[in-house]
């Protein structure tokens, strides 16, 4: 028995229990701000758990997305809606409880034939995967197996994923972006600016921080082949830097640095870059996304291919995150404007 293993197992179960407590709290609390924060914490605990379970890349992503981006979006939504939830009728609660209990029991029933946790003899460790672990160094030439699988063995899935986030961004534009383009949005952001202007510390610290965040993003982007990280995480981090900028200096300022047309182009070009890499393989007579033909040696080709597609993912994710944020923020600005206009007119009366 290895003491490290025991600690990690104990930690693992503890974290899961904490998550359970958090989840119950989410279910019970009716203040939506608290719920959203708890949901962020829930994600963050998930990320911790992933680290314990050796999934560093996933942990990275979950932290950036679940705890970061999702929470920001939810708070943005709360700002536009209401902060409290109505009580739920009892009848429905009972029905839901019964349904969930039944499904839960089905799952527990299913678990009795599952391989035990951590068992190296489980089928998933012995079929398919050994090749990745044993041959990916020779076939792809990267130490991070997750990146190898993500970008090459299952690169097609990742392309699909990039298109999913692209779809979401375009969808958000269609739903709440420039629905009503008011010039006053900028002017209103200036109002928000004023609020923030007073918080000098925030402004200074963020100005100092943002370059480092960007740098870190770049590092994650280019280092993803060797350590944890890659296009997706880099995109989110890069996006986070700009979102921070936007929060503190106002949407207008952010849009000056990153105009809407630019994010739109980046978003589209990112996925196109990904797909075009595949098309180049096609033209060179290989299968779609077969990077071997991109350079004189297969591993060289893989390297170029992975760099290109990771860059494409990064671009799309970054631009999509910023686009989505701006859509929500723009809506909020318009909303605040409407309310203040109402108040103004009420005051005049």
């Amino acid at each position: 028995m290895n003491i490290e293993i025991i600690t990690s197992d104990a930690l693992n179960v503890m974290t899961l229990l904490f998550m359970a407590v958090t989840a119950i709290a989410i279910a019970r609390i009716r203040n939506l701000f608290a719920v959203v924060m708890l949901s962020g914490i829930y994600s963050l605990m998930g990320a911790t758990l992933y680290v314990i379970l050796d999934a560093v890349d996933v942990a990275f992503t979950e932290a950036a997305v679940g705890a970061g981006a999702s929470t920001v979006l939810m708070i943005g939504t709360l700002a536009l809606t209401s902060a409290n939830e109505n009580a739920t009728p009892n009848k429905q609660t009972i029905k839901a409880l019964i349904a969930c209990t039944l499904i839960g029991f089905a799952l527990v029933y299913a678990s009795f034939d599952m391989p035990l946790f951590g068992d190296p003899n489980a089928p998933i460790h012995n079929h398919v995967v050994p090749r990745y672990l044993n041959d990916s160094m020779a076939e792809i030439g990267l130490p991070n197996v997750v990146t190898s699988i993500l970008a090459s063995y299952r690169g097609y899935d990742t392309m699909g994923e990039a298109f999913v986030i692209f779809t979401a961004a375009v969808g958000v534009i269609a739903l709440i972006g420039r629905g009503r383009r008011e010039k006053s949005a900028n002017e209103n952001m200036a109002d928000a600016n004023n609020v923030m202007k007073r918080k000098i510390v925030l402004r200074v610290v963020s100005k100092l921080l943002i370059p480092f965040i960007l740098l870190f993003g770049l590092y994650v982007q280019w280092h993803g082949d060797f350590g944890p990280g890659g296009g997706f995480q880099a995109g989110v981090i890069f996006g986070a830097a700009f979102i921070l900028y936007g929060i503190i200096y106002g949407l207008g300022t952010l849009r000056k640095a990153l105009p809407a047309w630019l994010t739109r182009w980046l978003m589209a070009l990112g996925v196109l870059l990904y797909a075009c890499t595949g098309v180049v393989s096609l033209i060179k007579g290989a299968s779609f996304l077969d990077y071997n033909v991109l350079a004189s040696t297969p591993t060289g080709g893989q390297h170029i291919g992975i760099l290109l597609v990771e860059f494409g993912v990064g671009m799309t994710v970054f631009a999509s995150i910023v686009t989505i944020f701006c859509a929500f923020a723009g809506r909020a600005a318009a909303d605040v404007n409407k309310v203040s206009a109402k108040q103004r007119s009420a005051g005049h009366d």
Partner: protein
Amino acid sequence: MTFLSLNMSVLAVIVPLMAAPICVLLRHSGLAWAWATAIAGITFVLSIGLLQHIMANGTLVYEMGGWDGPWGIVYHIDEVSALVVMIVAAIAAVVMPYAKLSIEREIPKERHYLVYCMFLLCMAGLIGMAVTGDAFNLFVFLEVSSLSSYVLISLGNDRRALTASLRYLIIGTLGATFYVIGLGMIYMMTGSLNMTDLATSLPEVQDTQTIHVAFAFVIIGFGLKLALFPLHIWLPNAYTYAPSAVTAFLAATATKVAVYAMLRLIYTVFGDVNPFETYGLRGVMIALALLGMFAGSLLAIFQTNVKRLLAYSSIAQVGYMVLGISIGNAIALEGGIIHMFNHALMKGGLFMAMGCVFYMVGSTDLKDMAGMGKRMPLTAAAFVIGGFALVGTPLTVGFISKFYLVQGALAEGWWPIAFMIMFASLLAVIYVWRVVEVMYFQKPADGDLSYNEAPIAMLIPTYVLIGAAVYFGTDATLTSEISLNAAQTLLGGSK
């Protein structure tokens, strides 16, 4: 030429997929439309080529990135996949020309390019689902198509489109997550995600509790997606309040692809397990299918909005498809598969006819249909023909489907089921007739019977589908050959 024939399968997915971001860059409404239409046309041609290729050469395996399965992602395309790809591409190619006017009327101009982008993504997602041979990749493309269809539905100009879309989003995501849970368990027990690989390794573990539950999760997941009764609650509102062109496209394709996915899971992934016998699935599925057929038709009878009426009818028609899948012999399966194609034609045509009405009248309420026989004779005639097809009148595609389904049921000696199929189509007579009666034998409230037909640019696509619904009903040699081949492939080459 070899380039094309080698890569037709992947091109059918990435052409519309790559066209979508370009569509966003175009921004101009007319340009985006022209672009999307051209792409839909190209994809349609590709899909025809693909279908011919598969019919001539049998199942096609395409290795993504040059990695062979089960390590990489592969396409696994047999006759059913190729047929479904063709359905999606064909419907898209017909709906696109139609969409221009319809969308101009229903959606603000600055959003048009986004709509076409979403159309392309949805189409690519659906085709991607149909060609893939990887169970997880299926989920990814399912999400591409789902997310884009949520957006498309939400763009309807009634505010209820928003709630319909959100409810669909929640249920759709639950369905997809159920699928992922089930797939996780399957993966856990076999270590593979490749469908053909799973087919060989699943029989070893078929009797474990894990696989039992996994199978249930997977089926429920897609049951939600294909609106299998009683998991259909999202569908009526989504179809009713979505923009007309969107409804026509989704009603004709989305549920079909979900049915296809279920078919693939049951017959390919679990093919050697034979879940119908092993898990006693047949009884459950047949019961649900019949319930869906009757409940859908009965509910359709009481609707006052024709789009919603057609939506409920879709639930019933999905019941027919599921019935064909679950009876389990080659003829019934052939009936189920051919009905996927046939129903796409007729439901697409019917919803397009309703789109024409909406374009001219601004409503699809039954009461606003009065006098349509005189005011919009061509549109009304299209609806009548489509309605006949829905009922299953001979010389329309509906008859061919029912012919095979009933034959399949009788071949098993299940004549009560054969009767129920007929009774259900009798219910279809009632709900179709309600509309026909109002259109032809009722005078509108304002008494206005002046000729006020929809624009020709919308009528032609409508009639292309309606015409196809008649053509393939009078000469079903081709479609029945394809679906018979498909059924035999799915059943493992034997009858």
